[in-house]
């Protein structure tokens, strides 16, 4: 029917069969070697890219929340540090005051003690000196008396004593 339809060329229908068979075979070979693996790879890549985009979005939000947290922690720690510093300052102030008061009290006590001691020492020294003077004077007196009270003197003394007795009686 079509054999001489086109530009007088003879058509060989065996060729038609040959082309159909070779085309189907070619499709099969391409499917096995290239089409299957390549389209699968392309699909995998598309999936991977969409996954990557999702995970990138996720990590971006994660990073943002982390930054927020860090910011909060930072401001928190700043105020904390401020509290610590002010606490330490007031503590120091308190301690210093305490130490100064303590020192003043100590000094006062020490001063009083010292004065008391000095007074005591003075009293002791005075009484010692008085005793010493008494002893010394007694010693001196006894020494003088011992030397004076020789025989004559004793006699004179006794005499005078007796004379005195006589006078008393007379009166």
């Amino acid at each position, binding site marked *: 029917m*079509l054999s001489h339809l*086109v*530009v*007088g*060329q*003879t*058509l*060989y*229908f*065996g*060729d*038609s*069969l*040959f*082309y*159909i068979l*070779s*085309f189907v*075979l*070619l*499709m099969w*070979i*391409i*499917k096995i*070697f*290239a*089409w299957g*693996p*390549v*389209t699968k*790879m*392309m699909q*995998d*890549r598309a999936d*991977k890219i969409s996954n990557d985009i999702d995970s990138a979005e996720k990590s971006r939000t994660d990073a943002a929340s982390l930054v927020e947290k860090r910011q909060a922690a930072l401001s928190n720690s700043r105020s904390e540090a401020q509290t610590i510093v002010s606490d330490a300052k007031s503590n120091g102030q308190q301690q210093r005051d305490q130490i100064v008061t303590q020192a003043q009290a100590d000094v006062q006590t020490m001063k009083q003690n010292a004065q008391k001691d000095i007074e005591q020492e003075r009293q002791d020294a005075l009484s010692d000196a008085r005793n010493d003077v008494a002893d010394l004077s007694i010693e001196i007196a006894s020494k003088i008396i011992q030397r004076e009270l020789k025989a004559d003197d004793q006699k004179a003394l006794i005499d005078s004593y007796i004379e005195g007795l006589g006078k008393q009686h007379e009166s």
Partner: protein
Amino acid sequence: MSDDPVSTFQFLGLTFSTANVVSGLVVFLLVVAIVFFTSRKLAMKPTKGQNFLEWLIDFTNGILKGSIPAGDVGKFGLWGFTLFLFLFLSNEIGLFIQVATRSGATIMRSPTSDPIATLTFSLMTMMIAQFAGVWKLGYKAHFANYMKPFVFWLPISIFEEFTNFLTLGLRIFGVIFSGEMLLGVIWDLAVSHGIVTMIIALPIEMAWQGFSAFLGAIQAFVFVTLSSVYISQKLELEE
């Protein structure tokens, strides 16, 4: 060309043209080689060969997407890819390799410069379109499409199938055949008066060869585009 003796052989009671079988085989092997060597070592990060192959696949898928509904493109992807690659190489190969026996019978040229090859492919497209229509819409809706917009449209619809079949096959044949024929004419000119005409013919030959290469690519593209259009027409219900 019709005056030249044609080398033929008989097989299983059918007559084969040697030129068609040999050039068909050469193109077949070329396609297999290209596809085979570009698809080695597939990786997530494509290298040279894989890049080329993926570009080609995207390209033919793009042609199909132009007319076939998006949901059905995947089912015709392999067919479109194979068809485009085969036709493209068929169109180009005759521009660079033409072999004839001593008696003048061609045994190697573009397979698409013979109408039997192009009409075979066009017939294949028409059959795929019919099958696709039945597969998508069912027999009733598919054949009801022939009687739209009204019943008397039926003969025109049937006639249209034949004209589609013929124009699709003969368009690509005409372009490739004329391209090769003109190359032959220029060659005749080149050898007619020795070295002088050779020099004159050389730039003409180069220009025509380049133009034919361009036309071959265009024709392969047009063939796949029109095929997908014919298929998509069968995939949807006409109003």
